[in-house]
Each structure stands twice: as C-alpha cells, then as structure tokens.
C-alpha cells in the first residue's frame, strides 16, 4: 500500500503541468510529458498529440511510440480520422471498435489494425471557442474508455491547453521575429565592432573584443548595444580606444 494510488499520481501530474505554466518552459517538453503521463496513468497503449499552428495546419507534437506517430501523420496527411474529427468539432471522439469504421475511414482503420490498435479515444485541446489540437489515446483492446479515464484525459489536456495558449499570448510572432532578428544580428554587430576597434587601435581581434567588453562595463551599456552603436556610426571608436586602448594593449 506504499505505492501512491493512481489518484495521487494524477494529482502530481496536474501539479507538474500547472507548474510549467508559471515558469518559462518548453512547449515541446510539456507535450512529451502529457503523452507519457497519459499512457502511464490511463488505460491506453499509446498516445499522440496533434497541435495546430496559427494557420490551422496540424503537426504531431509528441507521441509515445512510432506506431502512434504514424497514425497521427496518416490522419494529418489524409485529413481524415478520429483525431482530426475531434480537432475540427472540438468534441471528444470515442471509437470503441476501429474495425467497424472501415467505411468511414478507409485509410485510418486498416492502418490502426495493422499497428495493433482496436479502439481510440480523442479529447480536444480546447479553451472556450478555441480548439488548438487533440490528445489521442490508442488502446489495444476494443471498448469505450472508462468514464474516470475520460474525465482525467480531458482534465490533463485542459491544463496543457491553458499553458500553450498562455505561452502563445505572451510570445506572439512579431515578438519572435524581433528576437530572432536581434539574435542573428547581434552576433554580426559584435564582429563588425571588433573590426572597427581593431582598426582604430591597431590591435588584434582578441584585444579589440576585450576593449569593447571593458568599455561596455565601464559605461554600463550592454555589449550588443555598444556594438550596434558603433556599426550604425552613432558612436566613434575613437573614444573607446583613447579611453581604454592603452590599458587593453598593455593588459
């Protein structure tokens, strides 16, 4: 009886998911955790998670096995299957006997059988009117997923959905574009600034870099900002070299 009960472990899973909402976290890691914990705690042989980007295109974000991954890819490619239906309608889709759906899904049903899956339960990742994906539980025996498991699966998906939407809200694409631009260009600006200072002070690149860093610290400005000012010719290298050049070359 020392083993934690399933309810305790489910509780821990919620805490882990909820914690990840607060701190800076990685969506991909969160999705992997979600599928892993679903298979561990719920009556499922495999789990897969599909998520839509801003333009309604779905992608498999995480899966617990190659078999589940293949089934998700098939559904995205053909645009048909229980997970796709769940995503489109925003409602849970329960298929207790996949083999009976061969006419409805002529591609999904045989492939699922080939992979050894007899039933599937898909829950939407939805907050109010916005459905962003679906969590899919594949089972190796036919039949409905038990009510308690269905509720638990939806609750896990709900917590993860809030996390993803929060992250998207704080990090919209213009923000990403700007950060990427800064990340790529700051490296370049620092190298260019090294060249400017090296030429101004007749020093090598290492000494030029040391000079730049020392000046940035002394002036209390970020190194990237200093570099960009030099590159935009808003600041001359003269000041930097006359202030620090001798100490850099002698030190």
């Amino acid at each position, binding site marked *: 009886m020392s083993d934690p009960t399933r309810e305790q472990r489910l509780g821990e899973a919620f805490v882990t998911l909820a914690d990840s909402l607060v701190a800076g976290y990685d969506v991909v890691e969160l999705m992997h955790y979600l599928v892993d914990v679903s298979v561990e705690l719920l009556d499922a042989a495999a789990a897969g998670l599909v998520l839509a*980007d801003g333009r309604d295109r779905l992608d498999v974000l995480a899966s617990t096995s190659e078999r589940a991954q*293949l089934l998700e*890819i098939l559904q995205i490619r*053909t645009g048909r299957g229980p997970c796709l239906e769940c995503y489109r309608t925003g409602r849970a889709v329960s298929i207790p006997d996949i083999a009976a759906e061969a006419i409805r899904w002529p591609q999904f049903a045989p492939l699922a059988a080939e992979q050894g899956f007899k039933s599937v339960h898909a829950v939407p990742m939805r907050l109010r009117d916005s459905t962003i994906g679906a969590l899919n539980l594949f089972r190796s025996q036919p039949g409905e997923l038990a009510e308690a498991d269905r509720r638990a699966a939806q609750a896990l998906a709900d917590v993860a959905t809030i996390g993803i939407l929060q992250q998207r809200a704080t990090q919209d694409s213009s923000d990403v574009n700007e*950060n990427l631009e800064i990340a*790529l260009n700051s490296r370049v600006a620092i190298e*260019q600034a090294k*060249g400017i200072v090296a030429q101004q002070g007749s020093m090598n690149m290492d000494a030029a870099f040391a000079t730049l860093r020392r000046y940035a610290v002394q002036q209390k400005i970020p190194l990237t900002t200093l570099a960009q000012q030099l*590159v935009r*010719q808003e600041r001359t290298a003269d000041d930097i070299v006359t202030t620090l050049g001798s100490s850099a070359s002698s030190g």
Partner: protein
Amino acid sequence: MAGAARVGVVMTPERVAIVTAQREITAAGAGVAGLGGMCAPCVRVLPVTGVAISTLSGSFASETVCASDEVAFRIDELQFDLGEGPCWEAFASRAPVLVPDVRGDAHPQWPVFGDAVRKTAAGALFVFPLYVGGTGIGSLGLYRRTAGPLTDEAVHDAEALAATVAKHLLRRILAAARDGAAPGSGNDPWQDSPHDRREIHQATGIVMNQLDLPVGAAFARLRGHAFANGDTMAEVAHEVVTRHLHLSS
C-alpha cells in the same frame, strides 16, 4: 489531400525513416553541442547528394549552420557572397525553389549565381524555406550530382524535414539569445560550425573604420573585391583581417 493510393506509402520503410530522421534532428536541436547533427539525417533519407542548413537575415547575418559536404557549403557560400540565388528566392517567396537542371536551364532570377554554380559538382538544386509560422529563419538547401526532378514524395518529405529543422533551429537561436550566449561560448549554436563568417564581419568593421564607410558600403566593397578577383569573401576577409590587404578609397 492525399488519396487512397497514399496509404501504402505511409507505411513504407522510407516513411519510418523520415520520422526517425525528424527525431534525430530534434535531438540535434535539443543538444548542448552545436547544430552540426541536423544535416546528416536529411542526407540519409532524401534522394540527394548533400545538404546545407543556413540562417538568412538581411544581407549580412547569413550563415551556414551545417553542411554535409564541401559542395553543399560552397553552394551556400556563393549565394551569401553574391547576395542572390535560390536560397534567397525560397526565403523571400516562402516556397520551395526546385532547379532540376542546373547546367541546362537558364536562370534569369539569379544570373551571376547561375553562372558560378555550374562550376560546382551540383547537377540539381532543391531549396526549401525554413519558416515557423510567419517567422523566417533560413533555408534548407539540397543538391544532387545528377540532374533530374525531385519526386512529389521527396518534396513532401523535404518539406516535413524543413519544418522540423525550422522549429528546432529557431528554438535554439532564441534560447541562446535569451541566455546571453556570447559568440563562441558554450551554448552558441554556431560553436562548432566550421563555416562561420565571423572574419567577414570583422573585415567589414575594419573597412568601415579605414575608409569611413557605412556598414552596407563596406560590405559591398569586400563583395566587389572578391567578385572582381574571383575570390570568396572569406578569402578576401582573411587577407584584410591579417593586414595583408588594404582596400583603398
């Protein structure tokens, strides 16, 4: 939307190979080492000779993240040096640029690169843009020694791999920026790239200071000198940084 004929395709060993390659790209992107591991899975599963993954931004901050061989790197370098070519076209149009016959076809969109690339071992070029939603990161450049088109299936596979590369490359660059990774430091995504263009940027700075030019003009001077002498920009930059070459006003 794929038809029923697609189903058999989904289960082929090739399809499993694509998924495996995506996993490996993800692992390379998540690793603490450089991103060199992103190229090999692409070469293995696509019907091409070589692969280069590059970041593209403005005209200066373009860099080869990894290249599977020297030809792939050279194709990238030519496009960066010349400022034209299919990687720029794919990046701007957000669509693949497929060049099944490098030597046979005329390439009015990029005449100088079209000319230069004929001297490499590439017979065909296939370039895919790297985008995550609306955010453009760079390009996935594929070349094959022999001319000929890429099958629809291979185009589809390359697009899938490009999406995976884009996602993890973007994540890595942003994470490095957030953590304040200094160039060359432990978590700099380019740390073990043998293809970095740092000397070109350093030489640009030297020329700016020497000739009192704005950054774009200094870069253009280096580019012009390289073009006029049939050298690469990296070669010219090395000469400038080591003080063997002084560009005159």
